[in-house]
């Protein structure tokens, strides 16, 4: 007969067991990282060994693109692999070509060379001869020629999400099979940079004509061919044996496993089911390195922040520069970096600093309105006639969990320092996006700049000119309009840097966009992976996917 246990005995035993379990869990919890600088390098130089062929690269990815038509989406989920199936005319350097993390020199991709007319309105591209489309129907490996470029440019301008960029083209000529001459409506010295953006890929005319869209078949000229795309399961890319860059790529296959849960992605890396991984905070990296001490870590350093508080600056009270400046001075952004981002983040700015200076800016570089000075902020708000504060609204979508903490800290600072009551509304993505881009909202929004294109033209003219359709922050400043237009017409690199600096100074002086801190993140690689480090602008797991054409396994 089993021994009877009284309730008292049972409670005593389970309490002891519970405490032991709690101690075990607490012991295994990763420690909070200090706000000290990251101990990991921000650049991993290319291997000096000869690359080896073979192997299957695998990654667990949060992104599962519903649409693969590059005319209809600029989603990172799509371009995490379209960048490998397809090419652009020009590209940024791969990790084994660049001198360092901030090397932004352009290289030929499908074009071998390019030149501009003196006024930078006519651009001529000489194509690489003998480049073939993938050996798949309906193109069956036919040669890629100038007419293909003309067709793609026209289709991009006609409809879809890239029309703004390609409607800049007045006409495209093809004097011969390998020459493309583009006439722009207005001068733009950054036109090749715009074509180097990861979204400006070439697609075959035959597929669009036969299918009516590019949703079913993804055929390009790139190093990999799409072998399988099963939504919510996997994308399988297979090595293209006819790739123009002979001997490359090195992996036989690249498998992207759809894995929406962050803990599962980490577990996949820990167990070797994934070869590389992106993490946000130092404590997450520490936790992974406890079980996988050989992990190679690249400390990513963002050159810009994609998020900031957008103010309805076309109407009161935010049309008053004193109110905007008061807000900027009342928010302690460094505290956000130190607490929410565990010290591994930037305090926030919108134009990548590498376009106007070499060193990463500090808070002091942004001028008086960007220092945390609550008393002066209060004084300025009183001068603007809002001494007693006011009520406003802020809506946002939680792009990442830490964002909610940032939003709450902004709310707290504005209440504490300026008596501004901010009513927060958290929205789902589609609602947020629809409301944000319709430009009819009042008060505040947690605004964004898309991550796909971070060329200087995109980040200045296209996001800040008052006439641009991407001007979501509602910047309407004649000085900015003039400077951003001038920048597009300035070929000299030194002058470009000077003008860009003026744009940034003007933006910060007028507090046109209220930038918020953003994490830097880390890329973790299995120890055998080589040549997959991410340069300054794009991570290799996202828009920087073309870099994987040079990656290989050292085993």
């Amino acid at each position: 007969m089993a021994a009877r246990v009284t309730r008292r005995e049972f409670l005593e035993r389970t309490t002891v067991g519970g405490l032991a379990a709690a101690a075990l869990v607490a012991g295994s919890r990763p420690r909070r990282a200090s706000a000290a600088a990251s101990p990991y390098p921000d650049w991993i130089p290319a291997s000096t060994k000869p690359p080896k062929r073979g192997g299957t690269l695998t990654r667990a990815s949060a992104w599962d693109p519903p649409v693969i038509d590059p005319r209809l989406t600029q989603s990172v989920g799509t371009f995490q692999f379209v960048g490998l199936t397809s090419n652009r005319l020009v590209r940024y350097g791969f990790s084994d070509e660049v001198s360092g993390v901030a090397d932004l020199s352009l290289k030929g991709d499908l074009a071998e060379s390019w030149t501009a007319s003196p006024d930078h309105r006519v651009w001529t591209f000489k194509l690489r001869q003998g480049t073939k489309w993938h050996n798949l129907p309906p193109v069956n490996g036919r040669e890629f020629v100038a007419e293909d470029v003309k067709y793609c440019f026209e289709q991009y301008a006609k409809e879809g999400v890239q029309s703004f960029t390609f409607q800049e083209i007045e006409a495209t000529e093809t004097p011969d099979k390998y020459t493309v001459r583009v006439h722009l409506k207005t001068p733009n010295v950054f036109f090749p940079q715009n074509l180097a953006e990861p979204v400006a890929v070439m697609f075959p005319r035959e597929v669009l004509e036969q299918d009516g869209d590019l949703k079913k078949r993804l055929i390009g000229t790139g190093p990999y061919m799409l072998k399988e795309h099963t939504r919510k399961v996997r994308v399988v890319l297979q090595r293209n044996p006819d790739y123009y860059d002979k001997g490359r790529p090195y992996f036989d296959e690249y498998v992207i496993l759809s894995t929406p849960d962050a803990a599962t992605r980490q577990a996949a890396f820990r167990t070797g089911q994934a070869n590389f991984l992106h993490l946000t905070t130092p404590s997450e990296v520490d936790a992974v390195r406890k079980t996988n001490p050989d992990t190679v870590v690249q400390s990513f350093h963002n050159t810009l922040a994609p998020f900031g508080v957008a103010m309805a600056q076309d109407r009161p009270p935010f049309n008053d520069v004193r109110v905007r400046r008061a807000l900027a001075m009342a928010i302690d952004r460094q505290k956000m970096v130190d607490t929410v981002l565990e010290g591994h983040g930037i305090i926030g700015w919108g134009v990548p600093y590498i376009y106007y200076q070499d060193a990463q800016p500090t808070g002091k570089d942004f001028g008086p309105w960007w220092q945390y000075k609550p008393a002066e902020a209060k004084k300025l708000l009183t001068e603007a006639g809002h001494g007693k504060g006011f009520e406003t609204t802020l809506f946002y979508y939680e792009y990442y969990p830490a964002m909610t903490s940032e939003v709450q800290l902004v709310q707290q600072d504005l209440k504490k320092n300026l008596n501004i009551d901010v009513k927060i509304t958290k929205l789902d993505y589609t609602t947020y996006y629809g409301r944000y881009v319709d430009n009819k909202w009042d008060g505040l929004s947690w605004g964004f700049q898309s991550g796909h294109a971070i060329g200087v033209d995109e980040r200045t003219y296209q996001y800040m000119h008052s006439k641009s359709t991407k001007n979501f922050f509602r910047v309407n400043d004649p000085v900015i309009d003039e400077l951003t237009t001038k920048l597009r017409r300035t070929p000299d690199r030194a002058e470009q840097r000077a003008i860009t600096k003026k744009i940034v100074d003007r933006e910060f002086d007028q507090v046109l966009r209220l930038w918020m801190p953003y994490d830097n993140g880390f890329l973790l690689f299995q120890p055998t992976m080589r040549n997959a480090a991410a340069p300054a602008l794009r991570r290799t797991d996202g828009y920087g996917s073309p870099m994987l054409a040079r990656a290989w396994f050292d085993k």
Partner: protein
Amino acid sequence: MYKYVLRRVLLAVPVLVLSSLIVFGLMRVMPGDALTALMAESGNVGEKELQKLRKDLGLDLPYYKQYLVWVWQMVSFNPGDSIFTNEPIPVALRKAIPVTLELATLAMILGLVIAIPIGVLSATHQDRLSDYVGRVVAVSGLSMPEFWLGTLVITFAAIWFHWMPPIGYVSFWESPWKNLQQFLVPAAILGFRLSAATMRMTRSTVLEVLREDYVRTAWAKGLAGKIVVYKHALKNALIPVVTIVGGQLGVLLAGTVVVETIFALPGMGRLTVEAILYRDYPVVQTNVMLVAGTLVTLNLLVDMTYAWLDPRIRYQ
């Protein structure tokens, strides 16, 4: 019996019509549409172009017309295509349903295998160690949500054993072993949660039945303990258990949404959640109607099971 079934089937019609109106209405009340979601991250599409695309997708029609078009599609068994991917909805369902069905079936089996023996053991060993352990297990199952338990299992399995179920769904027919590796852990988590309420109900009904006169008579006749419990008591104790299990099917389907996400399984849960986020109206509406129809049918089956379990029950 046949009249009863017919009446229940006819009663299901207004339930389904009401469900269709609710899901259709809710989707339209939500701000944004599929086009907004499609253009997200792009930010440079002109209003004229948006209007054209909206027209192409039929999103410019008045709501009542959109509803009637959809109802006609449903009754003619042609629910149309996904707005987002252009994939025919039956094709998407053919891929997702087997995944959820396998997960739910395994979870149900594991849940019952855990719940009924422990429930019976708890009842027959009332206030002893095994009873307390069983009750702690049951309360744990009720207290621990699937998302927490799933995350914990996947994380600690990776840390301690350097193992996790393989990601990248493979069908049972393609590789039975790999498929089972992928499904057993998530099914066990779902089943554990499911077993909690069933276990508690089994315990209390078995306890109640064991105090009945006919059970005392069985003991008095000198029957073996197992025969008394399993042959005489358990069958009669199962009727409320069946009710509980039937009622938990909805909970089980809701649980698959979370578990499918954590274990990267491409089932109905993920299909529906994604469709809601992308405002893919036809997919959401079809999925909800499918789930509503399934629950109505299962409830009917549960009611019919009563008659099998207890011959005294007659349906008029």
